[in-house]
């Protein structure tokens, strides 16, 4: 009998979503969808607000990576106050923002790997959900759990020192920053009591990479084949092709590694990227205009960044990048579970970058803000933990925002996440009359690999998790499972 499986809510992701999987009479998956079921409307209610309020207001989209929204909006506002972006800021202004951003990437990736993803690796996808969670990790793998907590803490302390608060700070202002580091703050990160110093963070980042590599070598088939599909990849890269998570030009490569977006200035992103609305989700579907709605989709995030960047400009992360690229013979890597690997390389890169910035004398400088001729439109892009984040604003003569468009990292991964769900649903559920909790968790594992922030993506209210429904041919619900 045909059926529809619903997974609602999806757990251990940020935001609220559900999955529906339609199966036919012979228990074959015929359609699967990741639905994002909430709506928030930030782009609308920010209209009328003064432009300088945007970096502080829009970061309320998210409690996990508010810094990304804070900085993307601030970068757009740099354009509006005539400071330009990237090298338009004072050295102290730009380096403080970078330090804030790398602190953010570090803590967000640590949160995802240790708190959200590690239970699936440590206990197995089909393990008892009562132990397959962060409490289970804390009980059975205490060292790893402590590292996860302390790495997050370090990143959050860096954010506090740069933004003023761990969550929803005010550090970045149009044209620069409102503070620099004091020598005491700088020294606390460089020479802090173990484990809260940057050298320990680098050591633990390398340890986390070793953990993943060991898991990979023991579960090669699963890690390599789980939700593995070819795709294009998009991210910012530095002008010389290096990975740069704060600023750069837009690059996209296809599944073969050929450049399909050639390091373009992101101020005109809308000439290259379109957004499609589909009736069953509040999350839009972005695509490269040149390749159309069907073929123009792409992936963003750690995996994409490994594939687009020519190299990583810090030594330890570069070594890992070389190993990563060699694994697919230099071709783009399309394995969804390798997102975890890529994320850990970025954790290492962020820790190295923080160390470099902390040793830079500009970080305690006092030239904080640049201004120039006022503009009426600004675009700010940043590589957020989950991928490329777009903020676009227009203001009126009275300094009020009259247009805002946000393409959030997770939104860029909408099509890939749907494909990952479909791939895993087919692999795990085809031919099975009875759907187990473990099979449904496999679907969640696929989504989780992308570390989606569903709240950000729809700019939405509500609880986080996701549900799975099984429907028959006529759309009647036959089974429904909700994770808690």
């Amino acid at each position, binding site marked *: 009998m045909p059926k529809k499986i619903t997974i609602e809510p999806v757990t251990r992701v940020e935001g609220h979503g559900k999955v529906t999987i339609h199966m036919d009479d012979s228990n074959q998956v015929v359609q699967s969808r990741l639905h994002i079921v909430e709506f928030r409307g930030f782009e609308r209610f920010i209209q*009328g*607000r*003064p432009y*300088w*309020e945007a*970096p*502080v*207001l829009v970061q*309320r989209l998210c409690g996990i990576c508010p810094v990304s929204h804070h900085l993307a909006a601030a970068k757009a506002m740099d354009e509006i*106050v005539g400071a330009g972006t990237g090298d338009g800021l004072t050295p102290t202004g730009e380096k403080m923002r970078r330090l804030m951003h790398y602190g953010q990437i570090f803590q967000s990736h640590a949160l995802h790997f240790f708190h959200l993803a590690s239970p699936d690796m440590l206990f197995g996808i089909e393990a008892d959900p009562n132990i397959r969670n962060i409490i289970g990790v804390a009980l059975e793998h205490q060292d790893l759990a402590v590292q996860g907590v302390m790495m997050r803490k370090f990143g959050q302390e860096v954010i506090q020192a740069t*933004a*003023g*608060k761990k969550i*929803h*700070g*005010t*550090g970045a*202002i*149009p044209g620069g920053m*409102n*503070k620099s580091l004091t020598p005491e703050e700088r020294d606390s990160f460089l020479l802090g009591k173990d484990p809260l110093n940057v050298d320990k963070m680098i050591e633990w980042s390398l340890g986390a990479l070793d953990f993943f590599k060991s898991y990979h070598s023991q579960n090669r088939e699963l890690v390599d084949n789980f939700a593995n599909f070819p795709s294009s990849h998009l991210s910012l890269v530095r002008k010389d092709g290096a990975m740069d998570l704060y600023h750069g030009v837009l690059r996209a490569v296809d599944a073969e590694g050929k450049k399909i977006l050639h390091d373009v200035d992101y101020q005109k992103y809308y000439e290259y990227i379109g957004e499609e609305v589909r009736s069953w989700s509040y999350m839009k579907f972005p695509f490269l205009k040149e390749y159309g709605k069907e073929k123009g989709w792409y992936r963003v995030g750690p995996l994409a960044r490994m594939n687009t960047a020519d190299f990583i400009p810090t030594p330890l992360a570069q070594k890992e990048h070389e190993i990563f690229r060699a694994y697919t013979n230099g071709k783009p890597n399309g394995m969804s579970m390798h997102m975890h690997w890529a994320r850990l390389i970025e954790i290492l890169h962020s820790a190295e970058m923080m160390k470099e910035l902390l040793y830079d004398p500009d970080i305690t400088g006092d030239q904080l803000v640049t201004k120039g001729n006022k503009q009426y439109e600004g675009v700010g892009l940043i590589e957020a933990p989950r991928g490329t984040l777009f903020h676009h604003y227009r203001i009126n003569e*009275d*300094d*009020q925002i009259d247009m805002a468009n946000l393409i959030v990292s997770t939104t860029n991964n909408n099509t890939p996440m749907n494909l990952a769900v479909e791939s895993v649903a087919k692999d795990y559920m085809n031919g099975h009359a009875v759907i187990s909790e473990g099979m449904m968790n496999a679907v969640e594992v696929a989504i989780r690999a992308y570390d989606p922030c569903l709240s950000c993506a729809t700019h939405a209210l509500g609880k986080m998790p996701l549900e799975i429904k099984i429907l028959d041919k006529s759309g009647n619900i036959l089974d429904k499972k909700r994770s808690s």
Partner: protein
Amino acid sequence: MNNKVNFTIDDKECTSTSDKYIVEAARENGVYIPTLCNYDGVKPAGSCRVCTVKVNKRYLTACTTPIAEGMEIEVNTTDLQDFRNAVVELLFTEGNHFCPACEKSGNCELQALAYKFQIMAPRFPFQFNERYIDASNPKIYHDHNRCILCKRCIRVVKDDKGKSVFAFENRARQIRINFDSKLGEVLTDELAEKAMEVCPVGSILVKGKGFKDPIGTRKFDHTPIDKIVIPEKQNI
């Protein structure tokens, strides 16, 4: 002539001089009476009622009532504290105050009072009144969502001829503070700064100033409002 006066606050013997208002006399004696519309050096208006106390069993505003011999003043009784909380809660529900994105956050007296009174949520329903934003002035951003009609700006911000830049318009529920468009056009930077400084909330902002004060350096980040008015060592 300023005569010495004797009075009590919550049964404590106090002294001051007859040229003071109750709120000032209390401060001299180390007693903090919360205020919002009151502004040092400016004739009091008594418009917010946050400073309400009981004098010889009658409710009066401490900022407008001169101190007098023999007054028996109640300040920190349960009913008066609840009354003041209610006034602050009403202000929050009548306007549209969104502290998380307000640049006055940390420097806002309404927010500081809410922290002082430990108000977690107002007991009254939010009104969601539709207020408008006047951003037409090149120097001032005037957000009526946050205005508490305290009249500080009307009383303090004046041109060199002594004419108020701000004034009330309309009446009753439609009442609002607006500024004289002609005077507004020639508003100096100093007057614009003054207007922002006297506004106890984030209703009057100097354009482009934004979040220049880092968190941790703002007025109320480390010091509660009562300890700013009366530093710890003087408090009884």
